[in-house]
């Protein structure tokens, strides 16, 4: 029974493919009903309660589409029915998935915050409107080229990447109804069309890089690998150089450093997602506070204050972990952390020296 349902047309819909041609041919109800049915099935599969009735959701989506068309400066002769599927999918993706009991006012505000002109332009392009395609290329050609240059190492690669973007957007595959099947359908209108195009360029650049990196390791990658090996050798040399006469104390220090690092990792993993993201952006990605705050959507001052709070929280958790799991006393914990932080400066000097020595050894070995 479940298998039959899975193979049925409705089952196909439940799996999220609204563009299946069989579905289009066999549909007996309108597109709005289809989108609402899709939403209901998705929620049912997830065992999530349906907060809105079908009629209410249908009306909200239709009204939202109508308002969007009215708000657009150039609606491009689109009708409400042309937007309902896209708007319904976006509603489910960004609002109902996290807030199934969203109020109608919130749903209306969700639709009113969409980029109306960009949505109309993309939908018109998807419908094969050549004028719309020309407008898209004319308005966002520079944006695509700029994004391609940022993601590429040279001008030729950037030009190739930009041309690939337009092909991806247009879609080399053609649907049964004659319309191209490209990436335009994935634009919901939440962000601007320019930002979406930049993201598409970035993802395509990563895909292309992965394809090429599997085949050939660039010289830069080789250099980085060599440096990584050298830094590891440098740390080992430092460890051995620090206490050549007392291997027991050196081993104890290494173990303590390992415990501290493990406690740090555990403390960071227990942070709230936003705090953890800040730690990753600031320490691991090397961003400045201003940039990390921009990613978080806050001002630099707010990010600074948050980082200070996170550091205090991490220390508190590290101390608790070291005292609880390793049986350290508070004074031992404080001393160990202070010694580890104090060794950091000497670590830098030693690592720089050993890195240089390691490069020479690696070159002779290669």
């Amino acid at each position, binding site marked *: 029974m479940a298998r039959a349902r899975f193979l049925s047309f409705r089952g196909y819909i439940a799996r999220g493919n609204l563009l299946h041609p069989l579905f289009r041919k066999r549909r007996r109800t309108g597109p709005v009903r289809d989108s609402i049915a899709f939403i209901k099935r998705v929620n049912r599969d997830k065992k999530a309660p349906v907060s809105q009735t079908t009629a209410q959701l249908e009306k909200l989506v239709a009204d939202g589409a109508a308002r969007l068309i009215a708000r657009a400066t150039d609606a491009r002769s689109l009708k409400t029915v042309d937007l309902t599927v896209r708007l319904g999918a976006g509603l489910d993706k960004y609002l109902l998935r*996290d807030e199934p009991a969203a109020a109608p006012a919130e749903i209306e505000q969700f639709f009113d915050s969409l980029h109306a002109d960009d949505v109309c332009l993309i939908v018109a392009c998807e419908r094969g409107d050549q004028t719309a395609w020309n407008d898209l290329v004319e308005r966002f050609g520079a944006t695509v080229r700029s994004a391609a240059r940022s993601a590429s190492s040279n001008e030729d690669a950037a030009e190739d990447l930009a041309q690939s973007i337009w092909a991806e957007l247009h879609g080399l595959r053609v649907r049964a109804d004659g319309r191209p099947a490209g990436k335009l359908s994935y634009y919901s209108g939440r962000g601007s069309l320019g*930002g979406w195009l930049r993201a598409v360029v970035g993802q395509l650049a990563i895909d292309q890089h992965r394809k090429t990196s599997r085949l050939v390791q660039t010289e830069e990658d080789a250099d980085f690998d060599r440096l990584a090996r050298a830094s590891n050798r440098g740390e080992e040399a430092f460890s051995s150089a620090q206490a050549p006469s007392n291997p027991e104390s050196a081993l104890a220090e290494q173990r303590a450093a390992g415990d501290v690092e493990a406690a740090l990792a555990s403390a960071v993993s227990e942070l709230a*997602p936003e705090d953890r993201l800040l730690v990753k952006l600031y*320490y691991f990605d090397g961003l400045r506070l201003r940039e990390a705050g921009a990613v978080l959507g*806050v*001002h630099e001052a707010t990010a600074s204050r948050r980082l200070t709070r996170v550091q*205090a929280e991490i*220390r508190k958790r590290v101390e608790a972990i070291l005292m609880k799991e390793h049986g350290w006393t508070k004074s031992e914990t404080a001393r160990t952390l202070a010694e580890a932080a104090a060794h950091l400066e000497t670590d830098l000097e030693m690592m720089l020296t050993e890195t240089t020595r390691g490069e020479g050894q690696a070159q002779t070995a290669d």
Partner: protein
Amino acid sequence: MKLDPNTEIDRLMQRTARRGAASSLSFSARHQDGGSDGTEQQHLDADELSAYAENALPAAARARYMSHLADCDVCRKQVTELVLSLGVASELEREAATTTQPSTALSSSSAAPARTWRMRLAALFAPAALRYAATLVVLVGVVAIAFMVFRGGRQMKFSDVDSGTTNAPPSPNSQTANQNQQVDSDGPNTAPIPSQTPAGTLGAPTSKDAQTQPEGQAAAAPPAVAPADAPKETAPTTTASGARSNDFSIDGQDAGANEVAGDENASVVGGNKQAAPAGPQRTEKEKDQREAKAIDATSGIADLSSAQSSSRRDADKKMEEELAKNRPQSPPKESQPRARRGAARSAKTATANERMASGEASDDNLMRDEDRASTQQEKRNVSGRQFVRRGGAWVDTAYRSQATTNVRRGSEQYRALVADEPGLRTITHELGGEVIIVWKGRAYRIR
């Protein structure tokens, strides 16, 4: 050196981060399923990445994606590049400068929030140039207002001084004007003294002054007009520097003008200054007069009174010198009209000096009347006689407002009088200025 606890954690995290991407993944949330390298995770699509980068997501969705970004290096890197390319940081700073609340996903595309008058004012003065210009305008306005207030205060002060001096009644002169006319006709030897009125017009002319009377009248006419034209300018200077102006003006002027200049009326004295004499000496004296005006205007009445007293003492000294000179050299009056005229002129210069001194004294008296109206009367005891300061003159307590004989210091009548009465000379020398003394049953007004 002991580090701050937060600094220790900061350094430890930096060292851990330097060890490579593997460490970053080990710091991911433990509850997340999927491989540590993130390849099996479902990455964010372009629409989600752009919506997150532009802060265009509902709060719940944003939190969900934030949790993914905290653990997925690939998506986090893409989002970071999008955010930096879109200039989100600059926009955040701009929003922080204009509004107090950061933009949220749901309100980002809604209508612009209502701006209060403070925000509008802040936006108006956002350009630094406008801010500095407004500050400068305010400063200039404050300085201008202070200058106008200060200037108005000074003008009021001068106008008060002017009204006080002009209103000071020359009571002794006006009271005795008619008496002088009567007394003057008593004896031929009495020095003719023209009557003096506040208006500055001459009284009954004498034979001596017949020539100079028209001149004096002419000199009196413009003085009557001049103060009306420029009362503010002349009044304080004339009252304050009447002595000095008389000093400079009388030396070169005709006797008639000098006689008129001897009036204690400030307007007449000022008029003498207005009727400036011709000649290079007189231009210099005009300059001196102007300098005296400027000095007097700035120094104040107190300083001017001290200056007048000093000039009065100088005038007294000069008078005594003239007396000593003129005694052996005085020619007969009737035999030599020219010589007499020259002597009269020299005598008149001396008398003019005396008159100037007396004028100074009168001015001084006026000023002293103004200043000391509320104070106690001055009293002096000279040669066993009591004198009281009254109306700018030393009045013998024995004086009962009877008719007086006007005697000018330095005149032949005065010289004869003091020669006959040494005691009287002592008193007049002791008391400067105008003195009304009752001597041997007769009242003399010596000035």
